[in-house]
């Protein structure tokens, strides 16, 4: 009962904020700023003067795409260089060395593409300077890039008979300066009040109440493991009397990690780590931050195309899909693992315990907030986790994977979620047009062959790379040797990895050892293709739409703000996804679920 209340509260607050957030963003992109951020306008103008940007000068889609790609390339170079050079740079109190070339390559692509897939372990790899000066920065810039591409696409619908879709530098600067930055400052400070750390101190050492010990292989003088006469490794007991608390400038990264649907944790355990997500309130705000901008952008879209009902229709479609997926995840996790019950373990939900499948979950979040967070983070392209998806029940884990595979169009990444959904809307009106034999149109724009080709690219490229990459990895020894869990679940780990990379999600079935040259390279290319091979067709679509005449609504036009259209859109998303991914899901989570139910 309390669980339903928490979920209702979450959705209620989110939907209430969609309109104010959305109309604020409309004003930002139109350059009509409210007073409370208006004082930053001189900063904006200074930026343009220093960079030689003429804000009134608009771009064709090809120029817009070129600017976006060049800007992203600079990001890749900066993130890569910083990781390789961090050993000699300041703000490195733990003295971390250079990151390996393949891992640095993977991380650079991953953060620039808003994926934030992490093959590395944050608190033993990245210096504070690397975290804040390159990773935090890309949390902002990659999110803003997604928003620019969306705004360009919306302009394609909103404008007519024009060659241009906006100015990339202006959209980038405004997204960062007026939307992401103020929200991040506020959220970061609230997070600190809950206990998220924010400092530049070396890791803190504290005494343990009860000492621990472990066996470690004894090394000889040259650093090789020693063996006894029988050839067994010799071990020595190590006494541990202190606990080392990893610290750092976490809150500032945490805020934009969620607001920008980035998801890359400062620490390895991501939002499960108490220093990233200490309380139920910090968790609630994190979840709210993930969906805030994507939900608001639906309203922005409605306003910019001059009919807010269009935006609400999209938002309702997203919410319906979300609630469906959430119900499955909550149910599966709360049911728990039948094998546990056989061992004399109590998994029932009572007033004094959350019950359910608690493996890989935190006590303060229980089942309700772990399954909710997991559904949100994979509906959006966030990828932050507050519980370990690898230890979810087969069906709970399948929900997370399936949402990524649908293209993260349920709210989705900032910008990328809505442009993905609008591409689905184009496909939906096309399908409806085929059924009744009329030229499809959407928002007064005739959808023609070129537009459908671009939309098809956006729909077809991700499954091609996800399924192709997974097939390749499970055929190669280097792909299989990284698998952690046996059986069908092992296949799921690989499928999840490629889905997450192409979907620019970044969460993982994290048992897989992805920090290997094979996965760092393969997934590096996957994140790149999953991002820019979709953004370019989307911008091409924007350019094509902007150039079209607007045709007046007639008696034969299909209304795209009605419940009928909502169901058509939901159906299109589910059908395209099901046709593409059901066979692969059957080999992973479905088989595992049947096994789990049969054995016990």
């Amino acid at each position, binding site marked *: 009962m309390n669980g339903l209340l928490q979920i209702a509260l979450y959705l209620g607050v989110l939907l209430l904020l969609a309109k104010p957030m959305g109309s604020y963003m409309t004003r930002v992109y139109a350059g009509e700023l409210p007073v409370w951020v208006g004082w930053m306008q001189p900063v904006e103008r200074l930026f343009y003067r220093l960079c030689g940007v003429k804000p009134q000068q608009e771009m064709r889609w090809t120029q817009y795409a070129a600017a976006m790609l060049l800007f992203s390339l600079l990001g890749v170079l900066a993130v890569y260089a910083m990781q390789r050079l961090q050993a000699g740079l300041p703000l490195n109190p733990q003295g971390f060395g250079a990151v390996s070339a393949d891992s640095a390559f993977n991380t650079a692509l991953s953060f620039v593409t808003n994926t934030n897939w992490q093959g590395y372990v944050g608190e033993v790899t990245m210096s504070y300077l690397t975290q804040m000066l390159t990773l935090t920065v890309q949390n902002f810039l990659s999110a803003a890039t997604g928003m620019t591409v969306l705004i360009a696409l919306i302009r394609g619908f909103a404008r007519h008979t024009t060659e241009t879709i906006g100015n990339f530098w202006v959209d980038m600067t405004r997204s960062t300066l007026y939307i992401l930055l103020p929200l991040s400052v506020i959220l970061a400070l609230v997070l600190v009040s809950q206990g998220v750390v924010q*400092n530049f101190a070396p890791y803190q050492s504290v005494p343990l*109440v009860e000492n621990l010990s472990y066996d470690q292989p004894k090394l000889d003088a040259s650093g090789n493991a020693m063996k006894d006469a029988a050839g067994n490794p010799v071990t020595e007991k190590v006494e541990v009397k202190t606990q080392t608390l990893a610290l750092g400038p976490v809150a500032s990264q945490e805020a934009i990690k969620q607001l920008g649907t980035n998801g890359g944790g400062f620490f390895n*355990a991501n939002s499960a780590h108490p220093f990233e997500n*200490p309380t139920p309130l910090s968790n609630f705000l994190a979840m709210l931050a993930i969906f805030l901008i994507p939900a608001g952008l639906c309203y922005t879209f409605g306003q910019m195309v001059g009919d807010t009902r269009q935006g609400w229709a999209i938002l309702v479609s997203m919410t319906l899909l979300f609630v469906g997926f959430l119900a499955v995840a909550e149910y599966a996790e709360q049911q728990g693992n039948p094998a546990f019950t056989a061992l004399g373990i109590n998994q029932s939900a009572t007033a*004094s315990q959350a019950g359910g499948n608690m493996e890989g979950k*935190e006590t*303060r979040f229980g089942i309700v907030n772990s399954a909710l967070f997991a559904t949100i983070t994979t509906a959006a392209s966030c990828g932050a986790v507050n519980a*370990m998806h690898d230890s979810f029940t087969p069906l709970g884990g399948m929900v997370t994977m399936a949402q990524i595979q649908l293209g993260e169009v349920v709210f989705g990444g900032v910008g990328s979620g809505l442009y993905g959904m609008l591409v689905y809307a184009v496909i939906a009106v096309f399908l409806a047009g085929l059924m009744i034999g009329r030229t499809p149109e959407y928002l007064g724009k005739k959808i023609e062959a070129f537009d459908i080709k671009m939309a098809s690219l956006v729909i077809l490229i991700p499954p091609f790379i996800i399924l192709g990459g997974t097939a390749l990895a499970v055929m190669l020894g280097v792909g299989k040797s990284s698998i952690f869990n046996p059986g069908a679940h092992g296949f799921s780990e690989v499928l999840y990895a490629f889905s997450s990379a192409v979907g620019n999600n970044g969460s993982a079935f*994290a048992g897989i050892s992805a920090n290997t040259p094979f996965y760092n390279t393969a997934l590096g290319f996957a994140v790149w293709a999953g991002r820019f091979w979709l953004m370019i067709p989307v911008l091409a679509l924007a350019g094509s739409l902007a150039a079209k005449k607007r045709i007046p609504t007639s008696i034969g036009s299909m209304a795209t703000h009605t419940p009928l259209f909502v169901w058509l859109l939901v159906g299109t998303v589910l059908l395209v996804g099901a046709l593409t991914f059901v066979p692969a899901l059957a080999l992973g989570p479905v088989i595992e679920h049947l096994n789990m139910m049969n054995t016990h």
Partner: protein
Amino acid sequence: MLQLLRPAVGSFLLLTLLTGIAYPLLVTGISQTLMSDQANGSLILQAGKPVGSTLIGQSFSDPKYFWGRPSATGPVANNAGASSGSNLGPTNPALLDAIKARVQTLHAADPSNTLPIPVDLVTTSGSGLDPHISPAAAAYQLPRVARLRHLDAKVLSKLVAEHTEGRQFGILGEPRVNVLALNLALDAVR
């Protein structure tokens, strides 16, 4: 392409300064001024010296103490320098073996207790650093700790209640018991 280079390099550098230096420094400055306890790890101080963090769990195996969530970090449990979950899948035999072993350890520590074990007491947490257990998991261990410390069960349950947090604002999250704070309080009683 060249005409794009100046705006690209310029905006990249300026936005980096703004979001990568000015922003984290601003947040650090305000946090360290107004909320330095939280910003530095919510440390528990005894005689002015840090003895742990209220947010980070420690590992307990002595039956005199309440035990926390099992932890999958290496090389020792609750290693707050390298957080990690077990990532064991739900049908992995290694998961079931590990849980079986934990069930046996709990039974060995208190053979008289034959109640079903609360699930959070035998499953690893997501971070490996979970500072909390459910009130059910505390109640399960209470008779053992009371007996070994020669404490009245009523006195002990009062102490547990003092270290139990309800849902935040009565709604959010789950009720929970802070294990390290409770055990430190137990040692202070003795």
